[in-house]
């Protein structure tokens, strides 16, 4: 037996969810905006949800690890810890779900990052995609679209199970097709990590540095870039009050590795190498997975038109050629 819901019933389901939670889902951007057509935004009761969308400009990491997140407020000497809100992220794609899952691991080990883990614990994830639900990635509900406008619900947690009561899910005897999500095979190449580890002196980094603006867009739109800066923001007119924020940073920015008397990565080619090194060497070593879910955002939004798949391929091919010699 499969639990089925139709596209026409999802608005009603969301209305029920929105009574209890802040619900975020893909929304259409301002049509005058020159960037993406879709972005995650707050659900407004009664509006028609978008169930098919190509890609949002920012990944849903912005609800777990926001661009500017208040760590705490301060009033004179008193510190007030930030409290996470109960929220639902609705309509995540398979790869965005994977992005959140990996981000969870990043902020859980080796030291548990309380503000982010607290946010995750207060977040319900409801995914929608045409692929079969992932076996190893956690979610609360997963709606697999088996034909246009027809969704089969898969329950991934206790919370997810109780949510079924909020929508008009009906039991049907149907065969659910198995559709496996496939990443670019480059990302599963067993030599990938070693190829990047050994490629510091590859000419590709200085070639890329001639094209790359060093703007950091690729970091901001990446579901798995998570480097950050910490800043205090005093209230104007009441400087003893304010907030301490964690803000998105990018290792591509010139001052990223600057200390009081030295900059350890002055050259853009070294910063580009570090960007790849983090994703394909440091993260695999630390967590057992790479820092890429193959979502394509950095390709779409790079103003220099840099495509990581081409970089991966060239570094891998040259590494393998070197092995054969």
């Amino acid at each position: 037996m499969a639990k089925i819901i139709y596209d026409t019933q999802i608005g009603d389901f969301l209305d029920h969810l929105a009574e209890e939670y802040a619900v975020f889902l893909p929304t259409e951007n301002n049509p005058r905006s020159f960037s993406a057509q879709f972005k995650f935004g707050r659900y407004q009761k009664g509006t028609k949800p978008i169930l098919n969308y190509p890609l949002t400009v920012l990944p849903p990491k912005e609800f777990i690890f926001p661009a500017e997140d208040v760590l705490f407020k301060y009033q004179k000497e008193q510190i007030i810890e930030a409290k996470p809100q109960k929220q639902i992220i609705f309509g995540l794609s398979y790869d965005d779900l994977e992005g959140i899952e990996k981000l969870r691991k990043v902020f859980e080990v080796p030291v548990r990052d309380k503000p982010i883990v607290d946010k995750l614990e207060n977040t319900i994830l409801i995914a929608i995609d045409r692929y079969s639900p992932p076996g190893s990635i956690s979610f609360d509900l997963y709606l697999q679209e088996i034909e246009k406008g027809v969704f089969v619900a898969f329950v991934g947690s206790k919370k997810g199970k109780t949510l079924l009561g909020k929508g008009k899910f009906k039991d049907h005897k149907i065969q659910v097709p198995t559709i496996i999500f496939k990443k670019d095979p480059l990302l599963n190449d067993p030599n990938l990590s070693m190829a990047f580890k050994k490629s510091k002196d590859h000419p590709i980094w200085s070639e890329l540095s001639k094209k790359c603006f060093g703007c950091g867009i690729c970091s901001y739109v990446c579901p798995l870039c998570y480097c950050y800066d910490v800043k205090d923001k005093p209230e104007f007119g009441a400087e003893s009050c304010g907030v301490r924020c964690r803000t998105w940073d990018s290792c591509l920015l010139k001052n990223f590795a600057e200390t009081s008397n030295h900059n350890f990565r002055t050259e853009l080619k070294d910063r580009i190498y570090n960007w790849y090194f983090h994703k394909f060497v440091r993260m695999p070593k630390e967590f057992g997975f790479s820092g890429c879910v193959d979502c394509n955002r950095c390709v779409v939004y790079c103003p220099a038109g840099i495509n990581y798949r081409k970089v991966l391929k060239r570094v891998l091919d040259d590494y393998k050629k070197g092995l054969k010699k």
Partner: protein
Amino acid sequence: MKTENYIPQKAKIIKKEYLCDDVISLRLKVLGRKSFSFLPGQFVMLSVLGFGEVPIGITSAPKEKRYFEVAVRSVGMVTKKIFTLKEGDYIGVGGPFGNGFPLSEIKGKDLVLVAGGIGLAPLRSLIKHIAENRRLVKSLTIFNGARCPEQLLFRDEYSDWRDFSEVSLSVESCDSSWKDCVGNISEIFGRTKIKRGSIMIVCGPPPMFDPVINHYAGKSVSESDLYFLLERKMKCGVGKCQHCTCGELYVCLDGPVFAYDKIKYNQEAFK
């Protein structure tokens, strides 16, 4: 598992002293805590609400747990603000973070400390620890260099240190009253012989590293007995923010103290 909430603990400045014109020493007492435990070579995040936080090495002996001391050089916004704080004012403290100096490896060995400028500050914690546990090492030699005599930190303590160690000084510029070495710290290397098999710990600006490596690494000091304390501007101290990475290593988690053989081929460690 360790949890970090990034909320600084409130500490009171119970003593403030100028070590030179742009470096102060602060003695801090963390409120609501009977003891503050740390290892020599570890660092804390000092924070001033409204200004931000900075990683700063601990300079006091670990035996004293009621308070701890730090040396702060005035360079950026946060450290400049810290300079304006007075005794009795409050400051935020996070940590301690990092691995600290290799205390078990130095046991019973001839130990050489090489300090450049404010690099002496974290080493002072170890020197004071040895002062209280004189049998910890077989012998202690301190090479300390600075731009000028006035920039030598903790000058009034050198005579105490000489009770249990040999202290050699060098400065880059001075007047005729200066009797010790003139030039950069490698001037001392040529003049003072160290024992074969010594353990060496180096803490100072990156330009100091090459002369040390050229003179000692794999010669009188084996590569696994030569340690460097690396400086980076961490924003978290717990391996998240990525500001302190050197290749696969995190200075905040794996360091800040590294054996040379572990970072010899790490192209980002010595950049």
